[in-house]
């Protein structure tokens, strides 16, 4: 890439826990764990007050409760998080259309072209964090750099409620003292091997040659070497340019029966369709992903006769795909993704073989729903199955997923 880019990575601080603390004053300043069943569930979020006890998200609840016996455990309220997330993403869009969502609470923003309007990237990060604090009453941290990778590391560095800029040309100086475990894809397996080779910091790895790394570590190592040099050419891909738009959520507890999966899949289809409409896209193809408790992932896809941006249509396809599946094991995660996206024809060319008519009832209904959503939030109108699933009482089994590093 010739001209330097300006990428901002925004990550909400302890997102679910912060939403709970925002909505319930008695939780503020308290150690809060958002999670489900005290023995079988996992930690979905941990407030900053509980982190010194060693509680981390994705940890089994039983372990978390042992580590922090005085922590307040709160059941998750997915709809509240979804709503806060939409508000946050709306703020992002004020500063750039180049927003790549990573999850409900995390996104990359390419603000290269926004600088002439809003000033230097650090000022943009300050402004949008202030907007989030003022309007959504939540804290966000931001990393600013020339590449996605460095921006992401920088936002982690800035947490909580801070921002860190890595100015152009200083990526190496920033990265090299950090632990190699900061590089994407270096996990519990690779780390000891690298340490055995005397590689502890990103700088240690950068000092080797890519050939040496391939030979001694494996074929993925050249990629880490490039990251360690501060090279990461991957563009920020907004929904408008994305090849697919998807939503996926992990269940709070693994689920076996199809009936419990359906409301979650329905909610995902509705969310995906809303994002399609926002980007003026339609999908030719729907893909359903199911991850079993043992982490085996299966995907099934189906092409629709005509491209659609309607949530109910996408759901009916996903539901049919689910019905066709023999579900033998407990399910940990479901995902719905819209694929083979096509942009809508801007002006309405009438067809010879179709009955002449205005926009279909579905289109008009979705337009109305989108207007309500933009004014009152995504929870204002929902189908009955989603209303049931979205409340925080016992019927609530659906839970949003907080993904690991991309």
């Amino acid at each position: 890439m010739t001209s330097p880019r300006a990428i901002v990575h925004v990550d909400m601080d302890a997102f679910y826990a912060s939403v709970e603390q925002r909505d319930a004053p008695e939780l503020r300043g308290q150690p809060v764990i958002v999670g489900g069943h005290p023995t079988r569930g996992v930690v979905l979020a941990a407030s900053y007050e509980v982190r010194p006890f060693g509680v981390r998200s994705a940890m089994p609840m039983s372990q978390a409760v042992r580590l922090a016996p005085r922590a307040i455990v709160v059941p998750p309220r997915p709809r509240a998080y979804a709503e806060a997330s939409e508000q946050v993403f709306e703020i992002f869009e004020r500063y750039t259309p180049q927003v790549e969502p990573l999850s409900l609470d995390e996104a990359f923003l390419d603000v290269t072209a926004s600088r002439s309007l809003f000033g230097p990237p650090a000022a943009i990060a300050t402004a949008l964090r202030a907007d989030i604090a003022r309007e959504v009453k939540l804290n966000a941290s931001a990393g600013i750099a020339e590449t996605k990778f460095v921006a992401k590391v920088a936002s982690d560095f800035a947490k909580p409620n801070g921002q860190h800029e890595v100015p152009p040309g200083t990526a190496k100086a920033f990265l090299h003292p950090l632990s190699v475990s900061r590089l994407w894809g270096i996990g519990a397996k690779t780390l000891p091997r690298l340490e055995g080779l005397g590689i502890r910091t990103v700088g240690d790895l950068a000092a080797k040659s890519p050939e040496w790394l391939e030979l001694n570590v494996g074929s993925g190592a050249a990629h880490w070497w490039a990251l360690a040099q501060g090279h990461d050419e991957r563009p920020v891909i907004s929904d408008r340019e994305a090849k697919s738009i998807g939503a996926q959520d992990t269940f709070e507890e693994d689920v076996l029966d199809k009936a419990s999966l359906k409301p979650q899949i329905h909610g995902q289809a509705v969310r995906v369709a809303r994002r399609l409409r926002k980007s003026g896209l339609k999908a030719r193809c729907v893909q359903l992903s199911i991850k079993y408790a043992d982490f085996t992932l299966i995907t099934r896809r189906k092409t629709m006769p005509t491209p659609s941006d309607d949530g109910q249509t996408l759901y009916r396809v996903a539901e049919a795909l689910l019905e066709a599946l023999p579900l033998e094991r407990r399910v940990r995660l479901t995902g719905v993704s819209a694929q083979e996206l096509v942009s809508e024809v801007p002006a309405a060319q009438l067809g010879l073989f179709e009955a002449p008519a205005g926009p279909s009832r579905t289109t008009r209904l979705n337009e109305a729903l989108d207007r309500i959503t933009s004014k009152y939030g995504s929870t204002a109108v929902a189908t009955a199955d989603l209303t049931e699933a979205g409340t925080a009482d016992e019927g609530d089994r659906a839970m949003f997923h907080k993904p690991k590093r991309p």
Partner: protein
Amino acid sequence: MEFRIAADELKKALHRAQGIVERKSTMPILSNVLVSATKAGVSVTAFDLDIGIVSEHPAEVMKPGQVTLSAKYLFDIVQSLPEAQLTVKKLPNNYAEITSGSAHYKIVGMAPEEYPKLPKEESATLVKLSGATLLEMIKKTSFAISTDETRYILNGVFFEPREGGKVRMVATDGHRLCLIERELPGDFKLKGGIVIPRKGLFELKRLLEEAPEAEMSLGFAENSALFKKPGLSMVMRLIDGQFPEYQKVIPKQGERRLLIPRARLFDALKRISLLSAEKSHAVKVSLAENQLRITAQNPDLGEAKDDLDVAYRGGPLTVGFNARYLLDVLGAVEADEIALELGDEHSPGVLHGPGDGTYTAIVMPMRV
């Protein structure tokens, strides 16, 4: 195998093959041509599993045999040889040697036994026809063929023999439709019509353009079409399925009917559509007494209008059209005047030569 041939002859064969061979095929041999030398001469075959042509050429054959070589490289080579003649000789391991004057090539080929066999269409009843008429029919309809692969049946032109030795050809992309009827006497032994695929039709057009007056014949068998002219035969698979009932969408005579100088309308649409939206090419056609106005608006660019004097006495009307659809038709016909019939803003516009019912173009409006 070894033969000596005029470079121009081989060039002609390879030119014919270029449109058919697949550049990026899962079967690498399909980017090759099959060169066969027999006592009768040399033939060059190109085949993409749907369309195949065999082009025959005189040559001095020293030793019969076959090779398959890259259609692209062979064409490039034959176009840049120093002499008017060349010698092609098969070497071991499917290599071929090409010699022309001082130039020398040794080219990698593939085993000719692996080249897929073209379907033999001996059952086809071939009908002798006028190439010029068939060419006119293709030229006046093919632009309306759909390129949307999901509307498979519309990716070709409907060929329908009618009573009295006439043949109708219809093409549509669902937004516009072109219909032409011409004398093409002979019994094609068809029940109803068939659909000739776009790619095959364009290859056929190229072959017809080589020499429209030459003797040629066309026939159908099973699910394929066969075309022959001296030194060349072509076979193609037809599109399977039911072509839409096109008669139903042809409107009765429109309420508003006017005659417009064709070139004047063509030029006006062209200059005004410069400002229409890039994708939709939308222009507005407005009728008032003795006047036809074409306008275009684009929020990013501005607006444009052009007025034409026409003999018109009906009420005012504004209809939106894709200018390209109208331009395609106006560019394909030769008449000095074109008749335009309009209903209302949701009804199709109909274009045809004045007093000519044998060529009709129907264009659906746009909501503007």
